[in-house]
């Protein structure tokens, strides 16, 4: 079942009087329980795509629909709950002078009609962190721990889709592996649908079922992750693959 569909979406910005086409005619389908990887360099339109899907911005052209229902310019709380975004800068995504638990509580209450209290036990168990860490400030946690709480914050409103914007790029390899395993478990155990944006094809290969390659705001290649990486058709995809650094024993 298709959970999210984007049809021919375009997004343009004006920068110093010059029109910049951030995204041109991009279409995608995300199936229920699928992890879709989106790769490309800085400026390829990856983050713009997520901002449009999450509702932070509206497309200039094209349509987005969630479970067959078109997402208009004005979204409801239920729409926002359904699509949750996680950002690259985990520490910066929390209020620096509030405890992590307070930030998560605020995020949940902003999107609920009643004064809903997050289920702390379940959330902390889900991201494999001890409950007491939620009572700390972001500066007292590592980047990896903050990112796991950012995932907990997104999961606290029971979303249908997680949008991950370079969420492991600022982490060391060990924390990165922990986050990848966590997302993989959410996908396996809860059937989460995920759009995972990254510039690192090896990370995308480890996690994603399908991959979409963006270049200059257009989709240049798309297919099953293993297929695209083993038999890339586009020169740009080949360049991305050749830039992956691997350890050779």
């Amino acid at each position: 079942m298709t959970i999210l569909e984007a049809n021919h979406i375009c997004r343009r910005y004006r920068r110093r009087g010059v029109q910049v086409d951030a995204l041109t005619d991009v279409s995608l389908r995300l199936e229920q329980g699928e992890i879709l990887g989106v790769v490309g360099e800085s400026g390829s339109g990856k983050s713009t795509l997520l901002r449009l899907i999450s509702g932070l911005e509206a497309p200039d052209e094209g349509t987005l629909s969630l479970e067959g229902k078109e997402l208009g310019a004005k979204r409801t709380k239920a729409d926002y709950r359904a699509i949750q975004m996680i950002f690259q800068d985990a520490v910066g995504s929390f209020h620096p002078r509030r405890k992590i638990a307070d930030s998560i509580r605020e995020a949940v209450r902003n999107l609920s009609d009643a004064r809903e209290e997050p289920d702390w036990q379940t959330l902390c168990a889900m991201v494999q962190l001890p409950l007491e860490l939620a009572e700390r400030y972001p500066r007292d946690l590592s980047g990896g721990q903050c990112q796991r709480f950012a995932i907990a914050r997104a999961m606290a409103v029971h979303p249908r889709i997680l949008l991950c914007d370079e969420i492991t790029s600022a982490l060391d390899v060990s924390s990165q592996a922990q986050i990848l395993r966590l997302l993989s478990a959410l996908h396996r155990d809860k059937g989460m649908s995920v759009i995972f944006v990254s510039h690192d094809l090896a990370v995308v290969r480890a996690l994603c079922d399908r991959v979409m390659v963006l270049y200059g705001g257009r989709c240049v290649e798309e297919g099953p992750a293993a297929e695209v990486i083993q038999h890339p058709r586009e020169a740009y995809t080949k360049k991305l693959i050749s830039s992956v650094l691997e350890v050779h024993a």
Partner: protein
Amino acid sequence: MSDSSPILTVSNLSAGYGAGRMLADVSFALRRGEILCLVGESGCGKSTLLRAVMGTVPGLEILSGAIELGGQNLLALPRRERERICVNTFGLVSQSPGASFNPIRSYRAQFIEALRSHGKYDRAAFDGLVSAAFAKLGLADWQRILASCPYEMSGGMNQRIALALVLLLEQDILLADEPTSALDATIQLQVAQELARLRDVSGMAQIIVTHNLALAQLLADHIGVMYAGRLVEMGTSAQVLGDPRHAYTRALIAAIPSLRGDMPTGLAGAPPLGGPDACGCEFAPRCPLRAAACAKKAYALIDTGGGHMVACDGGAA
């Protein structure tokens, strides 16, 4: 590429902020033209070690040990004298590409300022030297670059221009703190190749801090693996990555994703926030090979042969 006598020798260095010790018992030597990569997770003391060597970071105190540069112990010198030597010897490239330059002043003005402060500015020779340095690093269009401001450039370009400045300043040792971590995969590779080229054209020794073991393999002659403020394994790139002995090194290698598509193994837990303990192995709580004796084991880096040093091989030897 490297000569035999070290230009920089660090012996039993311990350092910390205030009362907290963040580094202990660190010893290594660096030769001309050699690249040493320091690897480990965030919070393992890699950057602190770089700052301790640089020696001009407020609040970071050297508690014991020696840093010898060309046979002279820097720590025995008056502060001003030490700073003068360090500034002339060490070039610095940081993780944030924007941090090396003022974003709204032209590169030309900033290059001139940097050269002047090092007493190396010669107006007549400036253009020729800059074009030669840019050419050596494969950067085209030096005149256009010099006339632009850093805010107009991408992160990768800024990092490459910072390397050109280091080359112009003719410093002996480059200290680079995660120089490629903030960059895209394609640009990462480009900057890595430029670091290698910088070494090849100038013989500049480099200490590169990175959490990326694949980058270390690409660049390093020697690799030092750090955990909780101590070196836990050290050797040539082939020794450390081809025959890793410490459980921590193995865990770091297993955490790197590959294009084969295997899910990388994450090492559970996080490094301790405090520095090294006086006794007992700090890695023991996360170590798959831990034994009762680990809690009391004193730290020592043992040579397992051919200069491959390891703090613990899990009883394999």
